[in-house]
């Protein structure tokens, strides 16, 4: 790996090629330098840990989004799932002991994702349609169970979670550690694990995979279920950060997750995309928001900048494919 990088750098025009190939990392580093130059509070540990805390929730659902997109699908339900599952977790944490609440929430997330997975894999519904339906159902259920208002943690278990979510270990916020562990698990899975390779195979050529005796439906079902479980994980984290579960959480997060995956160079047709690049996508989006906040740019222009960055990143990938 290192030798190929060296070769690339030493060949004529190599530096440019290298930058184009690893463009997400390049953009990320560029943004980091830019941020550091433009604002003196940026490189304070308070700001950086704040940034990491902000992106962790969306980051976790982005990993779920990545594996769904790798199969050629899409999961629009994750934002609403975060809301429903945050409410669910808040209810559970006030009812049962903490480990049970956590496990139950993740199981329920897995179950909700399974519904999308079942519709897509076995009922041959278009992923966009199936998860769109799940999106409104989940949001609606969130409002029904919470009766429209946030549910606060009232038990010691809730207090423990709140402490966990707002503290740091070795200077890194705990919830960011959870996010990074999930990224590393995804990286390992997509490279060294058979399940990960088969997901890529299915997204790249579903018919060929089927002809090779791969149980395509099973894997398509599973990626949505896993995406649901990751949405549950994200929900637990964001609920714990604020000490409550609200049906308004995760609004439009599915779009940010898709944006992160796309900035990370994944193809919406499936088969292409990596966890490390998705991590970069998440960090890039987070950085933009962070630096614009530091510069006191209001939120509407921020959205415009975000969109422009998405276009820029995807255009840059066009070079890579040539």
């Amino acid at each position, binding site marked *: 790996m290192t030798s190929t990088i060296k070769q690339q750098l030493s060949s004529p025009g190599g530096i440019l090629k290298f930058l184009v190939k690893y463009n997400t990392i390049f953009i990320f580093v560029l943004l980091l330098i830019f941020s550091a130059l433009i604002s003196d509070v940026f490189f304070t540990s308070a700001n950086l840990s704040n940034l990491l805390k902000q992106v962790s929730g969306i980051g976790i659902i982005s990993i779920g989004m990545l594996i769904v997109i790798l199969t050629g699908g899409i999961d629009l339900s994750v934002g609403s799932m975060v809301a429903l599952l945050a409410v669910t977790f808040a209810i559970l944490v006030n009812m049962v002991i903490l480990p049970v609440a956590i496990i139950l929430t993740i199981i329920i997330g897995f179950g909700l994702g399974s519904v999308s997975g079942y519709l897509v894999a076995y009922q041959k519904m278009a992923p966009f349609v199936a998860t769109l339906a799940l999106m409104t159902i989940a949001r609606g259920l969130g409002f029904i169970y919470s009766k429209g208002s946030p549910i606060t943690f009232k038990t010691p278990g809730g207090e423990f979670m709140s402490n966990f979510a707002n503290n740091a270990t070795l200077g890194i916020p705990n919830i960011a550690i959870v996010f990074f562990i999930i990224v590393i698990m995804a990286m390992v899975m997509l490279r060294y694990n*058979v399940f990960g390779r088969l997901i890529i195979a299915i997204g790249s050529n579903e018919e060929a995979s089927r002809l090779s005796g791969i149980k395509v439906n099973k894997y398509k079902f599973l990626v949505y279920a896993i995406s649901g479980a990751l949405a549950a994980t994200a929900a637990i984290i964001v609920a714990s950060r604020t000490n409550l579960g609200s049906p308004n959480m995760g609004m439009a997060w599915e779009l940010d997750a898709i944006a992160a995956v796309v900035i990370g160079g994944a193809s919406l047709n499936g*088969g292409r995309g990596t966890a490390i690049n998705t991590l970069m996508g998440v960090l890039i989006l987070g950085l933009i928001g962070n630096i614009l906040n530091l510069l006191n740019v209001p939120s509407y222009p921020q959205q415009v900048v975000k969109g422009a960055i998405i276009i820029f990143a995807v255009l840059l990938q066009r070079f890579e494919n040539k």
Partner: protein
Amino acid sequence: MKNSENEYRLEMTGISKSFGVVSVLKDVNLKVKPGEIHALLGENGAGKSTLIKILSGVHQKDSGKVVLNGEEINPKNTHDGQVLGISVVYQELSLVNDLSVAENIYLHKLGASKFWMNWKGITQDAQELIDSLGFKIDASAKVRNLSIVQKQVVEIAKALSEDTKVLVLDEPTTVFDPNDIKKLFNNLFKLKEKGVSIIYISHHLDEIFKIADSITVLRDGVDTGTMAAKDTDKDGVIRLMIGRELKDLYPVRDIKIGDVPVFEVKNLTAKDTLVHDVSFSVRPGEVLGIAGLGGSGRTETAKLIFGADKKKSGTLILNGKEIKTKTPVCAVGHQIGFVSEDRKEEGVFLPLSIRRNISVTSFKPISSRLGFLNVDKEYVNVLDLIEKLSIKTPSSEVNVNNLSGGNQQKVALAKWLSIDSKVIFIDEPTRGVDVGAKIEIYNLINEVAAKGVGVVVISSDMPEIMGIADRILVMHKGTFYGELQKEQFSEENILRYSIGEPLKQLN
């Protein structure tokens, strides 16, 4: 009785299969011995693929019996088939572009394997397998970056990765040049010696007679019997396939060729491909053949002229006037047609109806100024072309993916005839097309030429290009290496030019 049972590796007897009300196979028998190369022939739609898919487990038979090594088998899916030692190389490339060569070769094992990937092991095994086939491909490369020829090799390696007892090859050589075909045949002979039973499906009858021991012909879902290859000949097989006499595969050409070229190319050089300094002209009524090995730049030349690739320099002259074709839109505007070799990806719109496919290049003559279609005109135009090309379809509204390969090709051609093209480039006109449809396509090419169109046919099929072309240009490494007049046509001459050798001097 017992002896005859042991004599065959594979016995398929009385196989019948219907899809809905359509009966595809009726009481078909196919018996293959160990170490035998058995050709399975038939026109497209005769039921060859269905029979193979029943064997491999993709489809389930309605009745009949499949016996492998004396035991009845019932593969429920392709994995079952593979475990039993039945491997199929499908006609449509069935590789996964985003995985490595090694992963593709062992994909069927991945589905059933343990938790972790054994990268080193599969890459090493795959490399050995490919090397043993005599081709040069890096097993750790991504399939996306391979050439189509290399992909086909990977496909074959994939079929051989199991302990294969029955190997089925469905049109394996369509993308191969003669050299590669020779290598493939050598490999098949090796497998044959090892006792592997090979079922070989091909429309290239020359190939069949080079390698097959026995031949079974299917016609309309019924087998017409099995015979030894040495007891029959091409004409005999063709007769069985189409059920009628066939005088000559290639129609007699007796068309007046104009004197003034309709289209000239001068010193054309590509920006991104290997094509350079290409010059030629084609006269009205002429069928110009372009031959050459795979990768010599034939398709790229056509794409360059058509504006699909970028040009660096060169001039195009249509009817004496210089034209520019920066994009395919320009080319279509100048009435230059291009029928792609990759029919499914670049030639037709599979999920659309025949009518929509044909109309797509010719909206102008059938629509009003504001862009509304005149549906009556469209139907007249489309039905006329369907009839002229004898496209076999119940109506113009049938989706193209329901047609056979030959009929799809006709639709692709019809698109360009509907704009009254002046020059048409046809890349591999009969790839994956059965004999009956081939003749129709050849006739069609002649008809088109007779109208004064300059037709340029690119083909790897040497008998075909010699059969239909008036003149052959041979490409070698991106430029024309030599030109052959009709009296010089021979496989040897084409091959010599293809590999950059001069012709043998006649004493």
